[in-house]
């Protein structure tokens, strides 16, 4: 009887430890706690070029993460990228003239969407579109522009 009881206790402890480890992996290691799925509200933004922006890339303002990129589509009429941003419900007071940029985190890091607040008194709601956008900087374009400017300076 005593050995059965010990087995029971040890198996119980084992299962508890296993589930604790799973909980740790989901909450502390991955982003399950940071809200997943369809909470919050969606905004769209049109960019001429999104560089290498990916679905699930962070959306941040002032360096704080507000949400993530939910969807990226291509508009065949305007030849633009339509990016859907899923913003956490807690941040529901983004001005309508908010500016969306695509930046790169660090020199080799991933690209993310950075929002700059405007001055409007009206706030963006679910399904609204951010009008002011700035495309991703493509390295080749920047270098090309730089060389072009230099050449022009020289010729003057």
């Amino acid at each position, binding site marked *: 009887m005593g050995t059965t009881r010990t087995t029971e206790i040890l198996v119980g402890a084992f299962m508890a*430890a296993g*589930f604790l*480890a799973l909980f740790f*992996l989901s909450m502390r*290691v*991955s*982003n*399950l706690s940071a809200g997943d799925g369809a909470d919050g509200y969606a905004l769209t933004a049109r960019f001429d070029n999104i560089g290498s922006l990916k679905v699930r890339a962070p959306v941040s303002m002032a360096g704080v*993460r507000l949400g993530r990129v939910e969807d990226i589509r291509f508009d065949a009429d305007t030849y633009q990228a339509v990016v859907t941003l899923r913003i956490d419900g807690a941040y529901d007071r983004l001005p309508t003239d908010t500016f969306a940029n695509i930046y790169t985190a*660090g020199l080799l890091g991933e690209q993310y969407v950075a929002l700059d607040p405007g001055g409007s008194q009206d706030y963006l709601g679910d399904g609204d579109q951010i009008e002011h956008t700035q495309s991703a900087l493509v390295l080749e374009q920047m270098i090309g522009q730089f060389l072009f400017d230099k050449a022009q300076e020289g010729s003057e």
Partner: protein
Amino acid sequence: MLTDALARLGRSGIGAIAGIGRAHLLLVAVLGGLPALVTRPRLLLAQIYNVGVLSVLIIAVSGLFVGMVLGLQGYYVLSQFGAEESLGVMVAASLARELGPVVTALLVAGRAGSALTAEIGLMKATEQLSALEMMAVDPIRRILTPRFLGGFLAMPLLAAMFSTLGVLGGWFVGVGLLGVDDGAFWSQMQAKLDFREDVLNGVIKSLVFGVVVTWIALFQGYDATPTSAGVSRATTRSVVHAALAVLGLDFILTALMFGE
């Protein structure tokens, strides 16, 4: 002679296919015992103990050290790019996606799988399985099914422990010894790792490995030649086949899960 060689090849091919067939028949019989197991939870408990509790030590120690090595190696590579802050991401992603499920499955195959094969093989060699059958007790349902379910349930829990301790080991080396920023370590990890993509896929992998490792171990024991030489050969085969199956399946699962 050429025909002799061809005949040998054919014989071993037929033998292999017949073995696979027997293994599947056994799996069906084992699964058939699952409903009856509901009324005998005690049998399952003992097997979770055998596969799970008895493997905790080796899993915990291995996980910790694998994580520490990942922390060390990752730091040296990442610091060359000035990206030490990504150490947490690297350690956690490689553990949750790959090393946790795979190394756990390999360790369980060596620690618990071989023990299962030897146990079943010995029960067969000492006529215990026949004796059960003569007592009108189905040895597959009574002996094999609880072991199968025990392995299936214990594997993801063991893999989660492995990954968790690995992350903590990487954190200890990276943050504690090498001076990576604590906040960056965790926040980058959380930002980059996805629950479904990384953690859930790892759990699915380890469930699949749990089925495969225990299935192979049970089959090798049940199919063993009932002599001491036969059982020892079966034990070796059990570990080798399980390891190969885990590594091969890992490639297929990874391609299915993370390939776009």
